[in-house]
Structures are given as structure tokens and as C-alpha cells.
């Protein structure tokens, strides 16, 4: 089978790589670029641990081909902070202790930013509904929801 040269912007930097047709975006991020903040949880499009943004929209990188997003702008958890200054969503997760084991956290944060970008005035119910594609196996949803509600206030300024 063939290999494919791809080029995309990841966290503001242009990157290139050689991938197989079947190489997933999450594999490209983790194994080719060493960006291991994006996690593989279920690998079946259900748990959301692999959430990244592609051209500004939150998506599950375990269910995208790397070749699929050739030419796109990709944002991962590593691209959120500005130096030592955390993104407001990261800061809210820290402040509200919105993580226990931390495995789902990168996906939760990326998904949550997508939700706030779409609607910065979510009710608690809308936040909970919006997280239906992200699983926390520690079941720490309460503080995750609190963090997102707090972060949306900061994000809308």
C-alpha cells in the first residue's frame, strides 16, 4: 500500500509527515509528532478522550484519518496555554478540581471549549447534555460541569 505526504498546522506550527492511508489523526499526533496529551480511550468514537479541534470544530481524532485532515488547522491540548498562562478552561479545571485520574481531562477540556465556542451561555443542563460524548470513568462529572460553567464566564469576558 502507498504512503502519503501530509501537511497541516498543529498548534500554530506547520508540520509534515508520511502516513499510511489508515493512519488515524490521533496516531499521527501521538506517534509521529510526540503530542501525547491527546489520549486514546475507547478507540470506538464513544469516550472523547481523543478530542481535538480541526478547523475550529471539536472532533474525535480516533475517528479521523490523518490524510483526511491534510491541509487543516489542528489544535490539541498542548496548544492551549500561552506560556505559563493556562487557557481559562484549563485554569477552571484546576481551580474546581475537575479531574481525578486525569485520563479524560484533555478530551474534556477540548470538548468543553468547543461547547463554549458554540454557546457561551449554557445552563448546567446544557453543559451536561453537551458532554454526552465524553466519558469520565472516575465519574467526576460534578466538578467538570462546575469548571465549564465557571470557564464560560471568563471566556465570554
Amino acid at each position, binding site marked *: 500500500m502507498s504512503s*502519503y505526504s501530509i501537511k497541516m498546522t498543529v498548534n500554530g506550527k506547520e508540520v509534515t509527515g508520511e502516513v499510511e*492511508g489508515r493512519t488515524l489523526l490521533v496516531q499521527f499526533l501521538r506517534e509521529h509528532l510526540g503530542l501525547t496529551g491527546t489520549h486514546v480511550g475507547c478507540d470506538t468514537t464513544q469516550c472523547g478522550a481523543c478530542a481535538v479541534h480541526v478547523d475550529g470544530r471539536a472532533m474525535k481524532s480516533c475517528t479521523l484519518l490523518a490524510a483526511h485532515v491534510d491541509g487543516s488547522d489542528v489544535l490539541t491540548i498542548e496548544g492551549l496555554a500561552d506560556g505559563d498562562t493556562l487557557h481559562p478552561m484549563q485554569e477552571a479545571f484546576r481551580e474546581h478540581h475537575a479531574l481525578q485520574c486525569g485520563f479524560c481531562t484533555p478530551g474534556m477540556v477540548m470538548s468543553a471549549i*468547543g461547547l463554549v465556542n458554540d454557546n457561551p451561555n449554557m445552563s448546567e443542563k446544557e453543559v451536561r447534555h453537551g458532554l*454526552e460524548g465524553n466519558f469520565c470513568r472516575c465519574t467526576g462529572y460534578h466538578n467538570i460541569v462546575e469548571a465549564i460553567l465557571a470557564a464560560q464566564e471568563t471566556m465570554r469576558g
Partner: protein
Amino acid sequence: MYDFEYHRAASADDAKSKFGGADDARYLAGGMTLLPVLKQRLDQPSDLIDLGDLDDLRGISEDSGNIVVKAMTVHHDVNTSDLVKSRIPALAHLAGTIGDPMVRNRGTLGGSLANNDPAASYPSAVLALNAAIHTDRRTIAADDFFEGMFTTALDEGELITGVSFPVPEAAGYMHFPNPASRYPIVGVFVAKTSDGARVAVTGAGACVYRVPEMEEALNADWSPDAVAGIKVSADGLNEDIHASAEYRAHLVTVMAKRALAA
């Protein structure tokens, strides 16, 4: 996932030509169903033809009493479209129940219909609204399109370009989702169309299907009460760890009532 040759189509014509030049190709739209299928090694295409660059297959418009949704339009865009929300709110609602927000950012109408999963949501709207499926070579009526489990009237290499949904007098959709996958265990779309009431059920059987006895009752009285006493047969319905055939049959009536009350 078995490996395959990957191609990116520059146009619909290019997609068809690349499809024709391959041994055993599949079109790749959003990939929200196809990629999981490939990961499970349930399919082994020689080539994938990515339709992601076909921007002229995206968009929503109104055309002589129809809402026309192009094939590569993602669920999020149908869910949040002011046009769809004002003309067929039940269709916007249905699009917002598919998967989760991240799946809705990627998955497409055309991909859902071409795949025809027994538990896909969109087929119920297409069938109940008596929509027309446009392809690169013809227009197929909803009643003729869905042939069976993962089977449609599409010919090899035929490409869905869009769907025309006639605006109904009234419509509603309600589903009972699987708690993990969010696919409907049973979903019911009801529509009061110019040809009378139409009721389409997804998730319960091998393929989306209509319920004539409910349609007859709704032609006489468009209300939840009209269907409340109608029990559908469990014969041939799906049975798995999530729900028995009898439970699914019961849910058809419950979801129909709720869709009418919605």
C-alpha cells in the same frame, strides 16, 4: 484496520472516476460510521475516495416548498440552521440527537443515508417526510430507497448529492437512545404531509419502516391519543443485549405518542 489506498476527490466527477478505477472502493464522507466499521475489520475496501473537498455538496436551501440539504452537510449545521428550525423543526431536532456534539461536527446526511444503519436516525426523517434523494444520476423516492439492513437502492459508485425534504404541516421525532452509543434503540418520526400522515420507525427492525395502522389512525385524528392504543407486532424486530423485540415493539408506540406530543 486493514490498509487501503486513499484518494481525495477534487470534484464529484473526479470522485466517480476514481471510484470506477478502483477494485472495490468506498466513498468516505464524514467517516463517523465507515471508520469504526473499518477498525472492526467488518469491511476491507481496496480504496477510499474522500469527498471532504467537495464544498459544492454542502449547504441548506429552500426550493419550492422543499428544504434541500446537500449530502455533505454535517449534522451540526442541520441542527442549528435557522431555515430548518423554522420550516421543519423536527428535522433540526433529529439532527441534534445524533451521536454527540463532536460526531455532529463531522458526520453527514449523505453518509448516514448511504450506509443505512438499522439504527441510524436520518432514515426515519427521510421516509416519514416523503423526501427525495438526489444522486449524480437520478432522483430516488424515499419509499424506494431503503431496501434492507445496510442496503439501499444506490447502484455501485452512485453518489448521493442531496435530499429534498417537503415541508410538512406538522412533524415530530422522538427516540429512546442507547445510553452508550446514543444510537436510537427505537426512534419514531411522524409527519403530516400533503399525502397524509406518515410514520417511520428506525432502530426497531432491520431497516427503517412505516407503520400503516398508525398512519390510518393519524389521518382520522392527528394526536397522541390516536396511536396510544396501537400495538405493533414484535415479529422480526431486533433483539440484543439492550432491548428485546417485545420491548422495542412497545417503545414504537411510546415514541410515536411522544413524537406527536413534541
